[in-house]
């Protein structure tokens, strides 16, 4: 029900681009308005769920709302950003196809419907990457991404067909546990691994991580919606297929390992990338790795929370890709940052760790038994609050009163955040699915410690080129290797020619 209405709304948006009497600009405006109406609809769906008038999963209604808002924001941006651009009409059409597909991925009622929506999203993504298809870089992006999608979609369809054939018909999510329980263990294992492969390919995880870095020859709004929306699909896939995956330790372990490895290698690439958008790409890969890893460890609510937060965050960073120079000019106009002396620094660090920490401790004693997700989310809140408070104490506040005030406000914000995330976790409720086998939560510590160590390199070893070698070895997993003469055919790229037709 939700799926069909959502698909219908964004299908109207896609059709707006196909009406030739409307100029591309008008089509873009109309599609954005339709999308905004869709966002209102998605909000009402959420309200209906809240009063138990519908029975859709919470993650479904929340994700539908997220997709609707994200699509509307990106389209509203693109109305002006792609003004008088050759690709505007193309963008309007396909971004709405992509949105409709994403709604389907979140809300499809059955396995086959889900697989179809998954593939529509892939097609929409490829079409958007082909916005400037004359350009060699765009071609490269479409080809590399296309192969990844082909493998991933093939795996998903294979798994879906295995389950459906065994069941003797399409399977709704409610029937999925019964359907998979009749599968032979080896067949179930194969199906689970296929589904994991599909998720890894769509979320640009090892070994499918190579497509994301070559997709920058598409308009900025395409990058925004891709990095905020499309690459998150693994999370929804895992949620839907949890009755199957949760019984197969190999599947959950594969998720965990692929995610952890991607997070570590992409973090290294993030430290070394010199170009703004390349850095954003590396950051997305790392964030997705983190998310997929937490899925493997069973922190499902935390993964969904991360999906939403990162989505808005990254969409913003891409759209603001032109602000770098403004920031550089502002920095020159302003005083140079002074590095603080040791004693206030130590005091600030202690205060920054303690204040939110005490709030956490208080919450710990008050709230009922914590799950992996609520613990993880609380840890995020703690570390973010500590960072903010440290920055406030050291760099921003100058008087004692202001410092005290910022400590109190941070404590209050931490408490608020804990309340919200705890409520969120309770609402999603996925963590308490009894059947799921997950990687033990403490395994998360290993990759996180690795990344933490990496984070300290620019501070502790600012001029040791051996660390550079180490980081470049790690990041080589996600960046093209340079070969010598004779093996150049595989990665031919030319500078982008812009050839214009004046009709």
């Amino acid at each position, binding site marked *: 029900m939700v799926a069909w209405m959502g698909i219908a709304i964004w299908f109207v948006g896609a059709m707006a681009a196909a009406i030739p009497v409307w100029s591309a600009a008008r089509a873009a405006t109309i599609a954005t308005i339709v999308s905004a109406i869709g966002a209102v609809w998605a909000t009402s769906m959420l309200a209906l769920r809240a009063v138990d008038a519908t029975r859709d999963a919470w993650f479904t209604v929340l994700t539908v709302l997220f997709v609707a808002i994200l699509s509307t924001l990106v389209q509203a*941006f693109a109305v002006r950003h*792609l003004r*008088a*651009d050759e690709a505007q009409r193309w963008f309007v059409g396909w971004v709405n196809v992509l949105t409709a597909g994403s709604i389907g991925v979140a809300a499809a009622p059955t396995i086959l419907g889900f697989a179809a929506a998954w593939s529509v999203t892939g097609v929409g993504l490829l079409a958007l990457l082909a916005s*400037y298809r004359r350009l*060699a*870089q765009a071609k490269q992006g479409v080809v590399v991404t296309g192969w990844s999608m082909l493998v991933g979609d093939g795996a998903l369809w294979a798994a879906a067909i295995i389950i459906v054939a065994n069941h003797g018909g399409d399977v709704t999510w409610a029937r999925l546990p019964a359907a998979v329980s009749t599968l032979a263990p080896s067949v179930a294992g194969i199906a689970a691994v296929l589904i994991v492969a599909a998720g890894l390919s769509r979320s640009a995880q090892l070994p499918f991580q190579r497509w994301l870095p*070559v*997709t920058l020859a*598409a*308009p*900025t*709004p395409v990058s925004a919606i891709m990095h905020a929306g499309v690459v998150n699909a693994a999370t929804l896939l895992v949620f839907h297929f949890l009755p199957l995956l949760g019984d197969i330790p190999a599947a959950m372990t594969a998720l965990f390992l692929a995610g952890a490895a991607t997070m570590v290698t992409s*973090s290294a690439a*993030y430290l*070394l990338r*010199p170009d*703004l958008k*390349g850095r954003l*790409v590396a950051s997305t890969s790392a964030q997705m790795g*983190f998310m997929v890893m937490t899925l493997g460890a069973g922190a499902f609510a935390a993964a969904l929370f*991360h999906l*939403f*937060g990162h*989505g*808005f*965050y990254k969409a*913003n960073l891409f*759209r*603001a*890709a*032109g*602000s*770098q*120079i403004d*920031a550089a000019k*502002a920095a020159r*106009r*302003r*005083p140079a940052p002074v590095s603080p002396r040791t004693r206030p620094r130590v005091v600030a660090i202690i205060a920054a760790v303690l204040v939110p920490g005490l709030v956490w401790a208080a919450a710990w004693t008050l709230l009922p038994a914590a799950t992996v997700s609520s613990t993880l989310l609380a*840890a*995020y809140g703690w570390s*973010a609050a500590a960072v903010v408070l440290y*920055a406030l104490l050291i760099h*921003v*506040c*100058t008087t004692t009163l202001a410092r005290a005030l910022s400590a109190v406000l941070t404590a209050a914000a931490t408490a608020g955040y804990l309340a919200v995330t705890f409520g969120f976790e309770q609402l999603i409720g996925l963590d308490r699915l009894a059947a799921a086998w997950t990687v033990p939560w403490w395994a998360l510590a290993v990759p*996180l410690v690795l990344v933490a160590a*990496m984070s300290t390199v*620019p501070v502790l070893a600012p*001029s040791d*080129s051996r660390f*550079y070698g180490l980081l470049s070895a790690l990041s080589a997993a996600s960046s093209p290797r*340079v070969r*010598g*003469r004779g093996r150049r055919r595989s990665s031919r790229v030319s*500078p*982008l*020619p812009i050839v214009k037709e004046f*009709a």
Partner: protein
Amino acid sequence: MTPLTGAAVRAHVTRAATALSPLWPLTSFIAVNPLAGHEERPFDQLNALTGMIATRREADYRREYQTGAITEDSLREAVRCEVPELSALRTPSATGAPTGLDLAVAALLHAPIDDAAPPPEREPSDADRYLCDLLSRLLGDPIYQPTRSGGLYTRYRSLAAQDRALPRAARRRLAALPEDPAVAIGESVRALGWDDGALERHLTAELQQLPGWASHLAWRATHTGDATLTDYLAIRLTLHRALGEFGSDPGAGGQTPASAEARNPATAEWAARVAEHCIPHPDADIVRLVLAFLTPARRRLIWQVALEAGYRTDLMARLDVPTSQAEPDAQLLFCIDVRSEGLRRHLETSPRVHTLGIAGFFGIPLSYRAPGGSSAREQYPALLSAGVAVTEQFLDPLAGARHLEQEKARAGAAHARETTAGAPLAMFTWAEVTGWLAGFGALSRTLLRPRRSNRPTAASTVDICARMTVEDQAAYAEASLRMVGLTAFAPVVVLVGHKATTQNNLYQAALDCGACGGNPGGVNARAAAAIFNNTDVRSLLARRGVSIDAGTVFIAAEHDTTTDALTILDQHLIPDSHRRRVDELQAHATVAADALTRERAADVPGARPSASPRRLRDRAADWAEMYPELGLANNAALIIAPRSVTRGADLRRRVFLHDYDPAADLDGSGLVNIMTAPLIVAHWINAQYYFSTVDPDRHGAGNKTLHNPIGDLGVMSGHSGDLRTGLPWQSVATAYGLLHTPLRLSVFVQAPLEQVAAIIAATDSLRRLLDGGWISLHARALSDAAWQRYGTYGFTPDERTHS
């Protein structure tokens, strides 16, 4: 062979580098002629000699003809100029037969359109792509980069040898490189077997392989000093050798296109069509002779010349409008920027407002540091090399201190944000927690479009008078006044700097004042006003024959070219006696701004003149906007003359206007100054727009939505490739047509002809530009004389101006 010495290598590199024009970083994006290195060649040989695209496509010109932008008259004129042989061609038959000129025009109109597809872009090798990446890492601003000190080549040696993206064998070879880049080049040259005679050609070809990076390094070598072209070539050659790849084809410096241009499909069909359209039908041999002259490249050039001639005819007809001028209440000095013309025209609807044009830094080069700021801004044209160090003094020290505290807190917050987002571990939780807020932020940003202001809130003055001697101040002041012929003053004289207001725009500096180094010009206006209001300066000026009455006040203002608003700066410095006049002027400027915004709305993509001016102005605060304003698009001419020549004329924001009055310029140094500085800068801007339009792949920066910035030093398109040079596509065109009609700069000077001729004769660079056809120049001594065109053999009357 003997080894090459370091000195010899460096000398060869220097010679090879003359063809490069510097690429300025985005924070101070200053217009340059991308082909400045080729200016010693005539423009019409550009294509044949360098393979550069010099004109638009023939089909574009034919379309201009069909829409009437090119008339048959201007086409005829163009043929006469470009192929004088044809107008002299004698036709055998009696009167009434088509002349050579007639035939040529018919031939141009019926030529088979021969726009060869642009040559496919050379695909960079793996090594070139890696080189781009490596240079971005070394010169850009990645989070981790262990080698921050030393020359570029030294840093490259320590970094590349560690980079696991390279094969092990290559890393080993790189680790064994010599320490001196020149020695490294010498060794490579010997290993490659290049002989000394051809060395310069080889090095030039190497520099042309990645023109964007080479141009950036050409800038870097002269401005930051941390990298040289010797470093760059050493890196290039050693890296290619280490990878066993040798890309550049010796001597591939662009001889290829000549063959394509030389072929002239003077087909029988074309000849037949020409003959058919001329009555009486001409002799076939004569037609063939005419067609033989009209190679595709020459045809395009003729069309271009025709378009320019047509524009000049139209421009000349617009000049010298008789206007009634009253004694001025206010005189406003604007930058010569073409965008000033619009506001000046609308301000002058009041006869008591006079305006003048002058280089937007008002002749006062500044190195301005904001109070407490971490670094200074170079507020002067690229032709100069240093400015007077100034900052601001707050009137109220308390308010100043408060402002400083706020700025410190903002800087601290920005720094904290940067370091937080920069640590891989922190970014996970950071995205998580702040992402939700970012969602709301984006929502409000999309719906509300907040306005931001960077102006210091506390009243302050620019402390120029404390930084210079009174004599120096008076010298600067006198030079500026004499240059524009301003010797009689209204009660209020406003110095108007200009700036653009855009959001999320990497090319903001291209819209700000070029004469102020790609920065807002308000500071220069404030400094100049302070000098002119200095009573000591005024008494010195009076002794030198320029007397400024005590009743005259100089005021600084800033013209926002995105919103057309004229903002009076330093309000606290306006004496009460002049307050009313200033308020009246401000009110008048608001009305003028509305009219100008409506006028501009006809040209800006997606804007409508009938809509409220607010709609267009809102673009200044819109982070999604790609066309906040049109910048200097459509610039075409420079007029050096008193405002009376252009007052009342609608020049459609296409003309740089510099005031000049020979009577005030006693020793002629003012004209020398104008013709060697503002004129050259106008040509740079014009050439940048020209080549960004006619050859957007090579000299333009491409579509802005693909831009991927590398620190502040430039952009690449997409995920890899060379640095892009020139202006982005959105500065010159839309998907539906050009915003900038590429015309070479037409200069008009009203001054004694012999004086103009003497300046040209004495200035090499100017003579090269004129004789090579990079710009054209017309002059006349007085406003009732006819314009004369400068040619290699002196001034000749331009017969078309008599009509």
